[in-house]
């Protein structure tokens, strides 16, 4: 008997492995396609980076030289191929004495900032990741807790209070709530010195500095997301509690506390996981408005600068592809996590 059970478990493991490797393969294909799409789109936009990077005294020769230097004098698919190559092998820009080497993984070279894009990303990423992780944890804890509580105490004053929060939270845009926080709380009560805004404190060496410099940006982001999550959690929990299998649990004599924690929350929160994963990935791509308000030098600001100032194509391509990659990876992680949670997806 035991052997049967074992081989059965093994075949289940095999199926899971097959599923995972298939999903990873698909994700890689999607990433490659996305990067190609980015190149096609930018190729057809009515901007010419070679012209933009040329300055006031421009001659056709200089433009052509710039175009060559930027690697824009070839077809988009050659550019794309070089881009892919650079990720794995590193890449050289310019010739002779002006030769610049960007080591793998190279995402291009920014001629406006005179820096390998990888280096710029390396500076911006910790900021954005810090912002995203903290905000994510904050809104998840806040949103789910409030949602569960208001579902549990449906139609009481607690529930109504949380409804007010949801209404306010969902109707306030980030640039308002962020500015309000910044102006009326942070600056008024000197919670962060305006001079310290945007200074990087490593969580490893200065955890308190890190925490206190990110707390308010987290809060301004988290409030909005939390409101949405409260509403979503509440309706999911309520919907799940009217399922037949919850009635079955009660008929077995399961206590109300266990009905909620064991029987209701797992199926009610599983769909929230999907959305949370994607929202988190979206934030990793850069929270443009929040980063701008709190002057955080993250991916969002990097992108915004690149677009606004000089149409710095390598940076835009890199951040766009990266943002897409985050979403694809998050999708993968979420699906795998969902499969762990829900046996109906695991085995079929």
């Amino acid at each position, binding site marked *: 008997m035991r052997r*049967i059970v074992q081989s059965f478990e093994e075949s289940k493991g095999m199926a899971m492995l097959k599923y995972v490797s298939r999903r990873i393969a698909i994700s890689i294909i999607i990433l490659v396609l996305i990067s190609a799409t980015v190149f096609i789109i930018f190729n057809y936009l009515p901007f010419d980076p070679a012209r933009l990077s040329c300055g006031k005294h421009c001659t056709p020769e200089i433009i052509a030289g710039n175009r060559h230097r930027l690697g824009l004098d070839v077809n988009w698919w050659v550019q794309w191929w070089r881009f892919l190559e650079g990720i794995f092998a590193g890449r050289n820009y310019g010739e002779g004495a002006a030769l610049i080497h960007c080591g793998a993984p190279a995402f291009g070279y920014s001629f406006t900032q005179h820096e390998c894009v990888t280096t710029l990303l390396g500076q911006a990423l910790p900021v954005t990741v810090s912002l995203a992780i903290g905000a994510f944890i904050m809104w998840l804890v806040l949103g789910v807790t409030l949602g569960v509580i208001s579902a549990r105490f449906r139609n009481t004053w607690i529930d109504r209070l949380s409804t007010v929060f949801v209404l306010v939270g969902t109707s306030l845009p980030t640039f308002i709530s962020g500015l309000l926080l910044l102006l009326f709380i942070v600056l008024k009560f000197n919670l962060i010195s305006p001079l310290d805004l945007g200074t990087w404190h490593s969580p490893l060496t200065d955890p308190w500095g890190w925490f206190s410099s990110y707390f308010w940006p987290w809060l301004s982001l988290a409030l909005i997301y939390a409101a949405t999550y409260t509403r979503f959690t509440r309706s999911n929990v309520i919907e799940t509690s009217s399922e*037949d*299998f919850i009635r*079955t649990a009660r*008929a*077995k004599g*399961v206590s*109300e506390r266990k009905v909620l924690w064991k029987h209701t929350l797992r199926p009610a929160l599983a769909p929230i996981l999907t959305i949370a994963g994607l929202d988190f990935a979206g934030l990793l791509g850069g929270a443009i408005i929040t980063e701008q308000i709190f002057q955080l030098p993250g991916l969002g600001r990097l992108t915004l600068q690149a677009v606004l100032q000089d149409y710095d194509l390598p940076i835009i391509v890199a951040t766009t592809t990266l943002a897409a990659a985050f979403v694809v990876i998050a999708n993968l992680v979420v699906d795998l996590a969902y499969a762990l949670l829900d*046996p109906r997806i695991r085995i*079929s």
Partner: protein
Amino acid sequence: MSNLLDVKGLNVTFPTVDGEVRASVDLNFELNRGETLAIVGESGSGKSVSSLAIMGLHNRAQTLISGEVILHGSKGSTELISASEETVRGLRGKEMAMIFQDPMSSLHPYYSIGAQISEAWAIHNDGSKRDGMKRAIQMLDLVEIPSAAKRAHEFPHQFSGGMRQRAMIAMALVNNPSLLIADEPTTALDVTVQAQVLQLLQNMQKEFNMGVILITHDLGVVAEFADRVNVMYAGKIVETAGVEDLYYRSMHPYTIGLLRSIPRVDQIDNHRLDAIKGAPPSLINLPIACSFAPRCEYSSLVPGGLCNQSQPELEQKEAEHFARCFLPAERIAEVRS
């Protein structure tokens, strides 16, 4: 008084914005161990509502329940309506168990069949997880699930419809309850599978000496399985009798109408069916009158339009045979034949 369950004056009412829905009105019945009582009725007749009230499964905040439900369990008698939530919870799944119409949606999709049965056991017993699983496999074996030890680790979606209902039965019986409420247990199943499950239920009833309340709309299933029958209409019991009396000496026009309106597989007929005209009334703000009167063929036989003016009581027509009708037993017997 019976030796298992006494229901006295049970009312279940749902307050709504449109008015009170009196889903079950003044229900009185009793049930002995080893006996099967069928509760027959159409949707909205109150048959499920009253059994959920016995199990204490209504949301107390949204339901008004009055009356008495006394369960004579293995550890003494308890009145369930006034008992604390905690007391009733201790009896649910232990002394009284329930199975439902749709076994797919009634089983938790995230937990294995074995885990769900073992949970039902663990709530009311002390023992390790391993003991619970052992007991679950034993129960699955008892309800004739092939290779139970292996299938206990599978999830509901991997079971067929019939096997899911068997698993539900195993779960309900894991603590050897004295009362089993089966709410349309075979309605969602195919007819050949229905036959298997009904047979299983009958065997289990004998084995555990349970009292069974069988809630169904299927008069065929009742004929096969029940000892006594309550017929419900618009929230009230309109007739109650032993199974043979009910089928062969029906005392309520609704019962007579139902039995006449259904075709049978063993009698080839080509005539028109004797349909009951009209439709059941809405349960909100029911007038004080016989609820069946608007559909009744015989209400004109009652003098003075009584049927539309006052409510008939459930009165004794014959020994052990009650019906909620103004017509005297002899008159009903006349019109029936």
